[in-house]
């Protein structure tokens, strides 16, 4: 039996405020959205759940205006990303480290080796977001730049810094980078 499309479910929500349609749409997209939001926020489950709830509320409120020119999942992720950024900025966490900091091992870096997921969570929020979008979610720099309201160059440089920092956290140097051990 063919799966009801996202657009059909959304239509029922808009036209009839249909709860069962919402539940189906929610269950279809929430696991991926939650993992994304959780990662961008650095692993705070409570905060991620709050963002997830706000994302669905905002999406439902604006569902009638969604033109279906992009995938629903992409649109939803964009809303979630904006909410994450707002939270990180409001909390003063949307910061990039100066270059010189990258060369100073912190407490976490003194550990011999840490889990990749934890290392990503330890990245500065700006670097982490670009790394998650590019290296995990598969976005291109042009798309990241558009979503974050920055230049492509900024996206590239943040990815550059994020990868370097991640390697330091993981304690795994790479010959190509020379200075990273």
């Amino acid at each position: 039996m063919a799966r009801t499309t996202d657009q059909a479910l959304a239509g029922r929500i808009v036209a009839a405020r249909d709860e069962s349609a919402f539940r189906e749409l929610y269950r279809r997209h929430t696991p991926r959205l939650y993992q994304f939001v959780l990662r961008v926020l650095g692993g705070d489950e409570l905060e991620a759940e709050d963002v997830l709830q706000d994302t669905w509320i905002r999406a439902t409120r604006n569902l009638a205006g969604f033109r279906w020119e992009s995938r629903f999942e992409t649109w939803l992720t964009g809303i979630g990303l904006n909410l994450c950024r707002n939270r990180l900025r409001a909390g003063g966490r949307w910061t990039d480290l100066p270059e010189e900091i990258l060369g100073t091992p912190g407490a976490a870096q003194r550990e011999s080796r840490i889990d990749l997921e934890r290392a990503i969570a330890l990245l500065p929020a700006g670097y982490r977001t670009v790394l998650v979008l590019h290296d995990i979610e598969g976005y291109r720099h042009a798309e990241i730049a558009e979503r974050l309201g920055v230049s492509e160059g900024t996206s590239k440089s943040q990815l550059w810094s994020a990868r370097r920092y991640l390697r330091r956290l993981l304690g795994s140097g790479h010959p190509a980078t020379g200075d990273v051990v």
Partner: protein
Amino acid sequence: MKDPDMPIDDREPVELTPEERAALDALPRERVPGRMLEERTINALRDGGLLGSAAPARQSVEGPARKGERGRPWWTAAAAMAAGIALFAGGLSVGQMLGARQTADAFQTVFEEGDARLASRVQRAGSDYVTALEALAEAGDAAADTGQALEVALTALWAAANEIVRLAPDDPLTARILQGFEARAVDAGEYGPGGQLLVEF
């Protein structure tokens, strides 16, 4: 070594090694949030008028309850879900703590979390318990439900104690409550093969 004076946009990209690429590809892309989140979201959408109220939908799907045809009441599920948040939200349960005897690990997890975050978790769980217990009170109109109500209330209490012990691991009252549950579970043979306390919802 890269030239530090070179404009950052012109630097060579830090390419991922095949091993790094594989490690990133292996990260999970999906994760299921706490079970109460869906209900909270739907309640918020109902409150905002973005979804219809639940009552008419329930009647249209299930029809009115008939006398003598009593399944598990809806509030049982609501209360169990409220209790469940404690078990599934944090990845730490006293069942594991008592059953697997990993107390040191469990306490370490507690101490790694900030007090504010824990307080927030407890506050949220508390709100869910209050909601569930209100539902319980409203449903207390049938003597036949008393046993089930007790079961649900105990489950909620057990889960609440789970949350409190995360905030205050040394609280003597919470410890006594949990010891009582442990003794009750042992008497009833409710420990699973792995030594974990089994709780059925």
